[in-house]
């Protein structure tokens, strides 16, 4: 017997695919209606994801056999608390970007609305698919779907964006190729592609070099996809030249989905015993530390605001991977196991979503790309600038914002394993964050526009962006504070504790 909720995981992917195709056809006849189809689909998906989380918390994981074939042979969708948690973040951010895109897309990509929404919906279908599937080859296919949509979306603006997209295309393809090689190695050893089945079949082969090589392929391939420090070179250009809402999606959730895949592969397929055999996670911590320092320092040198935010994303992937690296050794309740990593995935989605959408608003209104041009902007666009500042102080880590909570928990985890170097790095990186965000805030609020040289367009009293663009920005920025208080109140901790329990991390009760 399958209840109503158990059909929802596949319906989320299927209606996303349906809606992408419907937008393509309907767009031929009525250009305006495609945005409404897009909104309705996303709203339906978001509501479904809430139902799924509720069901998973109440009754345990959902297993859905596609076509009624049993798991080791057929494809299975598995939704546990980790998937459900990531899915909600993904769909919430997509919804915010979708509302924002209505006014913005006419400005950024005139006349390309139909193809933009088709590709955007396919991107979401791919991301949902990666999140929900329980089959490793299926995961690869969905990674390709969202990557290819992302390549096209980055290139949509043309000219310089083409080069950025091409760089990402090459590096992203190498990343997915490595992932596929890893899958091939595992398949040659075990003959199975199902995640749960693999975790049962693998333990006798933990000493096998092929299995170790497969794990290395997974790490390298996914590091490219998630822009971990030595492989981050594609990210700044791609994030800077994509349309604003796509930048927000790329930075806010797409690279985090690769982190999710990494967590899923290392804990669900390889399990804890294998990870304790190799010092991979210790090495990962040091790479992540390099990423934090490197990303923050590079961000200071940038003039273009979106490039600066992109380098900040590199630093934030460092935070998440540092938290993942610490997850094996830190066990104390609020910050033990994967808690800080999963927390920062949600927090980074909120902060970076807000920052990129605000940066897009500056481009929308006055075509301002560089930080030095922001003089006196706070008087013209008070609400957008206020939202930007809230997200920025959240990135710096001032209490009670979300950035403070995740930094606090990562620092507590480092203290627990008595590695004070990591603590120092996190504090230094907060100072570096302050350095590069203060520069922007100072230019917006403190410096007045140079008199006489009325640079950009009309000087009306209000130059605020349309309401449809303002609402998502304000929503995300207010959530930066609200969620910080919610985290400190330990409300969502039970979900994360379930994840830890599932992987055998944290304190054993």
């Amino acid at each position, binding site marked *: 017997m399958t209840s*109503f909720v158990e059909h929802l995981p596949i*319906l989320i992917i299927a209606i996303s*695919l349906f809606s992408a195709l419907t937008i393509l056809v309907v767009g*031929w006849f009525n250009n305006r209606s495609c945005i409404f189809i897009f909104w309705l689909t996303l709203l339906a998906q978001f509501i479904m994801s809430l139902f799924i989380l509720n069901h998973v918390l109440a009754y345990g994981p959902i297993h859905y056999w596609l*076509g*009624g074939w049993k798991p080791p042979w057929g494809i299975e969708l598995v939704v546990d608390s980790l998937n459900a948690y990531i899915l909600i973040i993904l769909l919430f951010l997509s919804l915010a970007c979708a509302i924002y895109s209505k006014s913005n897309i006419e400005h950024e990509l005139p006349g390309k609305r139909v193809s933009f929404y088709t590709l955007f919906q396919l991107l979401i279908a791919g991301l949902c698919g990666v999140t929900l599937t329980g089959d490793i080859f299926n995961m690869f296919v969905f990674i390709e779907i969202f990557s290819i949509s992302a390549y096209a979306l980055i290139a949509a603006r043309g000219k310089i964006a083409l080069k950025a997209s091409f760089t990402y295309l090459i590096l992203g393809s190498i990343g997915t190729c490595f992932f596929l090689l890893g899958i091939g190695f595992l398949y040659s050893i075990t003959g199975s592609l199902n995640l749960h089945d693999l975790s049962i079949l693998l333990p006798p082969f933990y000493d096998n070099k092929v299995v170790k090589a497969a794990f290395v392929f997974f790490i390298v391939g996914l590091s490219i996809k998630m822009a971990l420090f030595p492989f981050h070179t594609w990210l700044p250009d791609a994030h800077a030249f994509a349309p604003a809402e796509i930048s927000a999606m790329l930075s806010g959730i797409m690279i985090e989905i690769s982190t999710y895949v990494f967590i899923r592969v290392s804990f669900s397929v390889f399990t804890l015993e294998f990870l304790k055999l190799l010092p991979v996670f210790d090495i990962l911590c040091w790479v992540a530390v390099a990423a934090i320092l490197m990303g923050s320092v590079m961000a200071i040198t940038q003039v273009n605001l979106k490039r600066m935010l992109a380098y900040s994303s590199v630093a934030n992937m460092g935070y998440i991977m540092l938290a993942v690296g610490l997850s094996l050794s830190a066990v104390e309740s609020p910050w033990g196991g994967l808690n800080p990593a999963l927390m920062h995935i949600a927090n980074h989605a909120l902060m970076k979503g807000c920052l990129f959408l605000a940066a897009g608003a500056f481009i929308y209104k006055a075509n301002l790309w560089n930080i030095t041009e922001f003089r006196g902007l706070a008087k013209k666009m008070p609400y957008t600038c206020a939202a930007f500042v809230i997200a920025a102080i959240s990135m710096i880590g001032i209490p009670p914002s979300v950035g403070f909570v995740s930094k606090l928990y990562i620092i507590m985890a480092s203290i627990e394993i008595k590695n004070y170097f990591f603590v120092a790095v996190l504090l230094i990186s907060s100072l570096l964050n302050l350095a590069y965000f203060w520069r922007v805030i100072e230019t917006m609020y403190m410096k007045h526009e140079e008199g006489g040289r009325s640079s950009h367009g009309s000087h009306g009293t209000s130059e605020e962006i349309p309401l449809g663009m303002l609402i998502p920005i304000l929503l995300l920025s207010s959530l930066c504070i609200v969620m910080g208080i919610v985290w400190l109140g330990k409300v969502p901790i039970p979900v994360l504790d379930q994840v830890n329990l599932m992987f055998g991390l944290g304190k054993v009760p």
Partner: protein
Amino acid sequence: MNSKKEEENVVIETASRIMIPFIQLFALYVITHGALGPGGGFQGGVVFASSYFLYIVVFNIIEGKKRLPESVYTTLSSTGLCIYAGVGLLSIILSFGMAQYLNYGFIPFTSHFEKNRSLGIDLVEIGVGITVMAVMVSIFFDLAGKEKKDKGE
């Protein structure tokens, strides 16, 4: 364009007029035979599209666009996928949520479970074939017809 029309070759035109229907028939055979033997929706779709490429190569690209305008192949490419995904959805709807997605056995074409499953797979192959055909044609036009499209319109 007029100068090109004068260059038309009667032998090539007549030969292709005879060949195209057979290529298309073979494509349909490959699509419907896909569940039982080698072949299937993708291969059949490519063969079907290749008959169309022959038409465009022999006559010119303007004639080709008249036969299959952009609106038609865009619609076809999404219709095929809708059939593909829709058959899966039908199995949930028609079994009142008892069956899983893509479980074709529960679609009541006939009274036999296995026969239903095979018919469902055939329907999916047809959907895949339509999409592949339409996408191949659209790729062909994108590669071949950029300059002429600008001049023509």
